[in-house]
């Protein structure tokens, strides 16, 4: 695409001539990130005030010019490569920290604020911002949210989405929305997190800040096998002991790191864990005793606690030097990212090692043991086409392995253009079609970061959804028939939120099974029609707990669809739903992290049955009761459907067959 002279003049008038670049060097320099992708845009514009973002997007929309938001460009997925040309919007100058409010534990920032800078500003106030992606010293908060980055502290404190309270969001047409997780209706903020800039731009963010823990204790534990180390983490979670972080390495990685950084790691162990506890001193002491007992029960070879800050620093030195250790060995390092259910980690890692050996590449394996998320770091020389091919093949096979083990092709790095093709391996045709419709709703002209996430030609490449549950199949067939006959449907659970006596009711009553209470991964799977009370009774019988209110009268699906208990939504890890046209879609599963595709859990949460019928949910369970899990559930509010909802509804249900009163539907 060639940019017109008229548009260039208008851009220069809006942003200043010095902020609109079209020279060969600037175009080349804004066409890459940390991945191997390189795509030149047609122009690069630097935005130095957030107030200019809205008119800029209006102007680009008027000219139908694609754009790619770009800040630090530290992602490993090619998320900010301009695959279809257009304009790259450089957001790096937007670094303002507008407000730090320790009384309300909120910081308000511009999207180009570097995460490390916010941490530095918070540290003297005794506060911290929880997400800590490895690139936090250079990556930006806007970029972190666009990729839904997490980091080592994710297990205890959640990912970027969980730590973002609200955003000002600009659609590709230049409309501004203020979005919050707990606002009525679908959780748009949760959906935008991880969307890699394919829906629009973030103008301003409010993030959660927390008092910094007074004490931190770090432990180095080694194990004779990977399975023992993973079992240790499972046992920790089973005991309700959630460490600040659990970082792990396999033997080959430990040896490489030790050769490079001399951090004092024992090289004879098959697996090594760095576990960190934080909180009050008394609590840490108790947890440390429990931790030691669990580690010893799992045949740990050594259990070393850092006694001083210097010792703690030394333990971390090796982990931090892992990338450098590999970077010293070859000109290029390809960093992979895959996630599997935690219980599958030992088998999956063994398979990954096999893939690495088979392809004749050298790689280290680092993993966040508690999340089932691992990062192979493959070294190679990009100048050699043969090595390039081998590395690419190995990475593809590793990610396919993750999917085969019930995992995902991205835990925290995103899909971008590098893993786009593999989306057709992970998701069904129907799910990818839904992703495409969501994209169309937000961005009908396909201007925002086009060509990302959704694979090209997925209708042919992706397999159709296969469903074995007869109840779901019957419902799907019923919905499909209604869709063909243009008959309306009113989705109902236990009639606790949405009262209706409509003849067109579509009940989730047949979906009344608790499918799995998995105490290895600490996940439960239940059908949507299961009542919350019945579910909690079953969970208590298994000595586990969920973030659900005991007094809620309705069904699990109803609770999610009505967003009656917003605190439960972050605990959702997987969802299955039937769309108004009868397509069955599935997202996530027993995985702690998923940065591949749009977060459908957040889309259906609060959709009140207007976007589809939820059939199955996967959510986190805990060994200990969670504090204050009760209180009045939020009633469905009457609110006018916002333009985002209307646009999405038009895509998914153009005839308005799925009716829900809160969104302007009727029960007839």
């Amino acid at each position: 695409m060639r940019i017109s002279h008229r548009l260039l003049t208008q851009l220069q008038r809006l942003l200043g001539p010095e902020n609109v670049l079209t020279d060969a060097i600037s175009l080349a320099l804004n066409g890459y990130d940390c991945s191997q992708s390189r795509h030149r845009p047609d122009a690069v514009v630097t935005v130095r005030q957030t107030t200019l973002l809205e008119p800029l997007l209006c102007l680009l929309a008027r000219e139908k010019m694609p754009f790619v938001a770009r800040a630090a460009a530290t992602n490993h997925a090619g998320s900010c490569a301009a695959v279809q040309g257009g304009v790259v919007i450089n957001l790096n100058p937007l670094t303002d920290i507008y407000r730090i409010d320790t009384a309300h534990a909120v910081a308000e920032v511009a999207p180009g604020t570097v995460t490390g800078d916010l941490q530095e500003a918070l540290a003297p106030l005794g506060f911290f911002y929880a997400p800590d992606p490895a690139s936090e010293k250079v990556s930006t908060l806007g970029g972190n949210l666009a990729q839904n980055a997490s980091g080592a502290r994710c297990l205890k404190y959640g990912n970027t989405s969980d730590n973002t309270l609200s955003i000002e969001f600009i659609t590709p047409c230049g409309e501004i929305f203020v979005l919050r997780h707990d606002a009525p209706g679908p959780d748009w903020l949760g959906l935008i997190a991880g969307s890699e800039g394919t829906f629009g731009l973030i103008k301003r963010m409010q993030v959660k800040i927390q008092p910094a823990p007074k004490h931190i204790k770090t432990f180095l534990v080694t194990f004779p096998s990977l399975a023992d180390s993973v079992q240790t983490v499972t046992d920790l979670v089973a005991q309700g002991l959630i460490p600040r972080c659990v970082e792990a390495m396999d033997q080959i990685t430990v040896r490489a790191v030790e050769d490079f950084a001399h951090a004092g790691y024992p090289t004879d162990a098959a697996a090594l864990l760095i576990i960190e506890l934080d909180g009050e001193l008394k609590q840490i002491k108790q947890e440390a005793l429990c931790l030691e007992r669990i580690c010893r029960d799992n045949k740990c070879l050594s259990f070393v606690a850092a006694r001083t800050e210097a010792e703690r620093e030394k333990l971390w030195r090796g982990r931090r030097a892992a990338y450098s250790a590999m970077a010293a060995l070859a000109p290029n390092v390809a960093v992979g990212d895959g996630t599997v259910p935690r219980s599958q980690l030992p088998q999956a890692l063994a398979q990954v090692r096999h893939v690495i050996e088979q392809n004749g590449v050298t790689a280290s394996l680092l993993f966040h043991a508690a999340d089932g998320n691992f990062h192979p770091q493959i070294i190679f020389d990009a100048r050699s086409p043969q090595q390039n091919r081998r590395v690419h093949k190995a990475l593809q096979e590793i990610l396919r392995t993750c999917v085969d083990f019930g995992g995902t092709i991205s835990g925290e790095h995103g899909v971008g253009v590098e893993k786009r093709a593999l989306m057709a391996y992970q998701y069904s045709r129907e799910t990818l079609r839904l992703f495409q419709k969501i994209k169309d709703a937000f961005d009908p002209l396909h201007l925002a970061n086009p060509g990302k996430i959704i694979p090209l030609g997925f209708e042919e490449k992706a397999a159709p959804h296969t469903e074995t549950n007869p109840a779901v199949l019957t419902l799907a067939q019923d919905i499909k028939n209604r869709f063909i006959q243009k008959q309306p449907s009113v989705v109902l659970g236990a009639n606790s939120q949405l009262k209706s006596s409509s003849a067109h009711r579509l009940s989730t009553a047949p979906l009344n099974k608790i499918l799995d209470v998995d105490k290895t991964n600490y996940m439960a799977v239940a059908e949507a029609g299961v009542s919350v009370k019945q579910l909690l009774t079953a969970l208590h019988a298994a000595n586990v707990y969920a973030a659900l209110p005991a007094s809620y009268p309705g069904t699990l699906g109803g609770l999610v669809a009505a967003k009656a208990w917003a605190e439960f939504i972050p605990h959702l890890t997987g969802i299955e739903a039937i769309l108004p046209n009868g397509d069955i879609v599935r997202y996530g599963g027993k995985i702690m992290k998923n940065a591949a595709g749009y977060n459908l859990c957040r889309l259906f949460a609060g959709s009140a049955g207007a976007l589809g019928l939820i059939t199955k949910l996967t959510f986190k369970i805990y060994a200990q009761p969670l504090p204050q899990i009760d209180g009045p559930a939020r009633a469905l509010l009457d609110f006018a459907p916002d333009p985002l909802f209307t646009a999405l509804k038009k895509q998914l249900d153009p005839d308005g067959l799925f009716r829900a009163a809160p969104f302007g539907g009727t029960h007839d």
Partner: protein
Amino acid sequence: MTKKPFLLSPQRLVSGPRGPRTLDCSVDYCTRCNACVQSCPSYLLHREEAFSPRGRNQILRLLLECKIKPSDNEPLLKRTFFSCQLCARCSAACAGELPVAEHVLALRRAGGWSSMPRLLVYFMRLYGAHPLVFDKIISGILLLRRAGILGLLRISGVLSLPFLRWGAHAHTILPHSLRTLRTVLKKQKTALTPDNPQRIYLPSFEAQYADTNIGLYTLQLLKDKPAHILLAQPSGLFEYLYGSETISLTQAKNLLTRWEKLSARRKLPLVTDGLETYLFLKHYPLLFASLPGWQKRAEDFAAQVKYITELPLCKTGPAGTTNAKTGLDISSVLYPSDTIAERTRKILKTHLGKNFVECEYSRFVLPVAGSAFAEGYCAREVTLENVKDVSRQQLEQVYCLSGWAALELNAALRRHYPQARARHWIYVQAEP
């Protein structure tokens, strides 16, 4: 006049912490992880990829792969590559310790581009080649300055002429009462070549001509053992940065040979007072990496190079008597200096107690080794950013490990934040 051709050879050797590599190989080691970006002062000023270390590496790669033509992009290339302060903080942040500053120098040399006014480069060559002539000229300029002629020239706008702008800057940053170290030592009847010297002192250029107190206080530190004073002995750093690489190498060889002669197999320690000079001398083995005969000698030499913070202070007053809230500046060029910075922090903490603000107060490297005199550098902007940091932290004084850094910052502070002052670290020696 014919334009010098652009000669960027991929096979050119560049030296970094991981040893010498060819330029194309060294550039290819950049994984584009961007870990370097927040450590780069020019990026922090511009917030554009072209002004980041990663961007500069990628530009070099494009040039080496002949994907862009230097002639088509010369203004942007110059802007990008001259905005680099050569501070090498990016190398310290880089997982592969890439010598980006060396890459930048390689490109500048390939284009035959120099940011330093030619007149100044030739004038500085006199310093090593004809020290007495250089001294006489400096004495003459000082006389003119004392008589107020330079002030008049500045007011009248003569010093604003492009080829004399550096003179105006020098007039701004230099102290009012200037003397040369040679004159002062002559007056004090200090022997430059004592019998049986046990150390060698190589005063920095600024200690000899800009702030002679640096030289004098350093000599106080050295007074327990006789030291040979090497006046007008260039280290080669200035030529390496702004002039000819060959002349730089010759100057380095001269210094090395002179040290060997003076040491006479005893391997005398060589002390210097400018951090950038010290680090350059310490890295002589890299400079001589392609000359096998010289490398071993350079290694022996580098092992004996000491910075003044490695000597014990001979202060008379008790520790912690200074009430001024103090910060430390570790600006340098080409090589990072963590060990020296750490040691200096410890000393300041001992001597100043809680008044020492134990943090790196600025991300912005001050102009050192005369870079503020060069065109195209963001010298003024980065100095102002430093002033902002000083005022933000309400510091009352800043100790600098480089004489040039102290002069630049002090001049800016005098103008924009007179509550604070900047001095060379050796002034700790003179504290009550």
